């Protein structure tokens, strides 16, 4: 550990712990949470580690309160995070919407387990992917990242903080029990200050400050409480002053901007990895732990003489639709393995628009796919 309490070096740790360390390296100094399997270790690690860097861990009475507390802390100027799993994720949806509406930077980690309801608390799933996109009411856009390993959950948690500060939106780290509880080598580099993004602050005097007046990039500068700006923010539809205005016109301006600040900046936000795409006739589109299994299946398909490739989604939301549209012109089929009964496959299907076929390889949760199951689907897809 370095003098300032931030870790640096090579470690053997599980994904939940790596997530907590990623947050600390990203500058997170406030964590609010509620115990839930399989995300509890994130909270436990934060409770131990945050005091080393002068941060505060607070255990709230439920996940509704946890989500609100991180919004409050963010408006106090702190980088703030919470972590949870399915049932808690459902409870957070209400105030995830408040975070979107107030344009509050914060990070929400979901170590997914199998649902619906209490489901399989100790076993992996990817069943909350559509909830991540649509779980709160109203029209909005969100950013969600899907790590495949403890190293990636460390790295992506830092990316999540950077994106949330850059775009003033809650960012979701959509991991799962397998990654959360898997222990592996994690290399924690010294993060240089310039690698960390902080929200843009107002440069005008308080009397000239309009909390929701955005310029070119559609992201308004953000004042924080206690600095004399005396701003007002509300979950109601509001104008540039932050004042509630109950008209369809102001609703149109606001919701368009909230959505467009993500949509129009998607090239800067979206990240994916391609393997063997150039000559591929079939592409496996996967994310999170499933991408890790699929990698082997794609290799096995290549060994069997099938021109298979992989599009591995790092950013699941916003969806890499431009790239999938392009690839649909080239390939015969997309194979989509996921630990649910068909969620991201719907997006792939939408983007291919009938130009390539799509084949879902579902797993109801409780484990990960066997690579042979994915290989079988790849073979079926090229027939």
């Amino acid at each position, binding site marked *: 550990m370095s003098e300032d*309490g931030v870790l640096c070096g090579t470690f053997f740790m599980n994904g939940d712990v790596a997530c907590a360390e990623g947050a600390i390296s990203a500058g997170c100094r*406030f964590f*609010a949470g509620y115990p839930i399997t399989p995300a509890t270790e994130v909270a436990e690690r934060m409770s*131990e580690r945050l*005091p*080393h860097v*002068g941060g*505060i*861990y*607070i255990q*709230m*009475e*439920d996940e*509704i*309160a*946890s989500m*609100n*507390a*991180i*919004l*409050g*802390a*963010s*408006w*106090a*100027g*702190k980088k*703030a995070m919470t972590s949870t799993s399915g049932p808690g994720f459902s409870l957070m949806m*209400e*105030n995830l*919407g*408040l975070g979107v509406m*107030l344009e509050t930077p914060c990070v929400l980690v979901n170590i997914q387990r199998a649902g619906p309801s209490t489901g399989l608390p100790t076993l992996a799933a990817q069943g909350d992917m559509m909830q991540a996109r649509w779980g709160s009411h109203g029209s909005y856009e969100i950013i969600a990242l899907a790590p495949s390993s403890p190293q990636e959950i460390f790295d992506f948690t830092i990316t999540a903080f950077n994106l949330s500060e850059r775009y003033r939106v809650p960012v979701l780290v959509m991991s799962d029990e397998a990654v959360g509880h898997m222990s592996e080598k994690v290399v924690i580099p010294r993060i240089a200050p310039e690698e960390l993004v902080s929200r843009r602050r107002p440069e005008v005097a308080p009397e000239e400050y309009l909390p929701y007046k955005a310029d070119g990039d559609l992201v308004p500068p953000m004042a*924080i*409480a*206690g*600095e*004399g*700006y*005396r*701003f*007002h*923010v*509300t*979950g*109601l539809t509001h104008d540039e*002053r932050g*004042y*509630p205005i109950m008209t369809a016109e102001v609703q149109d301006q606001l919701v368009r901007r909230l959505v467009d600040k993500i949509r129009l900046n998607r090239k800067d936000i979206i990240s994916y990895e391609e393997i063997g795409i150039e000559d591929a006739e079939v592409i496996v589109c996967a994310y999170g732990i499933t991408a890790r299994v699929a990698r082997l299946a794609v290799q096995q398909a290549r060994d069997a003489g099938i021109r298979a490739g992989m599009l591995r989604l790092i950013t699941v939301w916003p969806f890499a639709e431009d790239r999938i549209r392009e690839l649909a012109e080239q390939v015969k089929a997309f194979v989509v393995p996921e630990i649910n009964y068909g969620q991201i496959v719907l997006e792939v299907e939408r983007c291919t628009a009938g130009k390539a076929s799509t084949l879902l390889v579902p797993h109801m949760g409780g484990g990960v796919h066997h690579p042979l199951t994915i290989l079988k689907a790849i073979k079926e897809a090229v027939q």
Partner: protein
Amino acid sequence: MTTPITEEENKFNSLIRLDRMPHIWCAGCGIGPAVGCFIRAIESSGLDPDKIALISGIGCAGRAAGYVKLDSFHTTHGRALPFATGLKVGNPDLNVVVFSGDGDLVAIGGNHLIHSARRNIDITVICINNFNYGMTGGQMGPTTPLDARSTTTPYGNVEYPFNVPYLVAASGATYVARWTVLHARQLEWSITEALIKPGFSFIEVLAPCPTLYGRMNKEPQGMNTMHSYQERSVVKDGADPKDVAINYDGQIVVGKFIDTERQTFGDQCKLVLDRAKEKKKG
């Protein structure tokens, strides 16, 4: 007759969002007078308004955040307290005040209320109690007296209400008071005390709702309810909170019930930081 104070002369203009007037509250509503007491209490407290943040939930009282010229947050229904908790912990130099209604704080936000009091987080809560949900049209709530009419208790309320001071005192609040908006001076003074005092301070403020609760319960004018407060209120500082339950037309006990000391959540957080430092050294 007194001369009305004009906008130009009002010394509290700097604390009000004049560009948001007129407000949405009905004629005879008690929320405005309670906001007035809060504004005057800011001055009495001598605190720097730049360092005061006001958080509201949803409902008629929840609109207060939109009318004061402070850093002000109009959050979701029932969630003002956990939002305020994050804000206070995130910046302990802020003086954080929650201004919201009984339905917001005691029903949907009830869990947050008792846990905030338990933690003794340094927040002042001003809870407007008008015995019903005003914004949605006068439905019964967790404070509606037994037998009272509301738009969802057309045959009279059969649920027992919370005795709110008793609830928050039992949960650990270190300052608990109740006033009606008729008790303007006492209320202003009580808010001033609460603003200055560390720890979880809770002030229940009874306020007329002539449009809904009053109309359905024989008090169709705000003034009727104010007269009723005058007739029914008894000041009992130091009264045991378990003895201050409110019923339909009986005595209303007002006063400062609890004023005690206990480590705040902020103090306890410092303890954690110190212990972690010790452990790291050792």
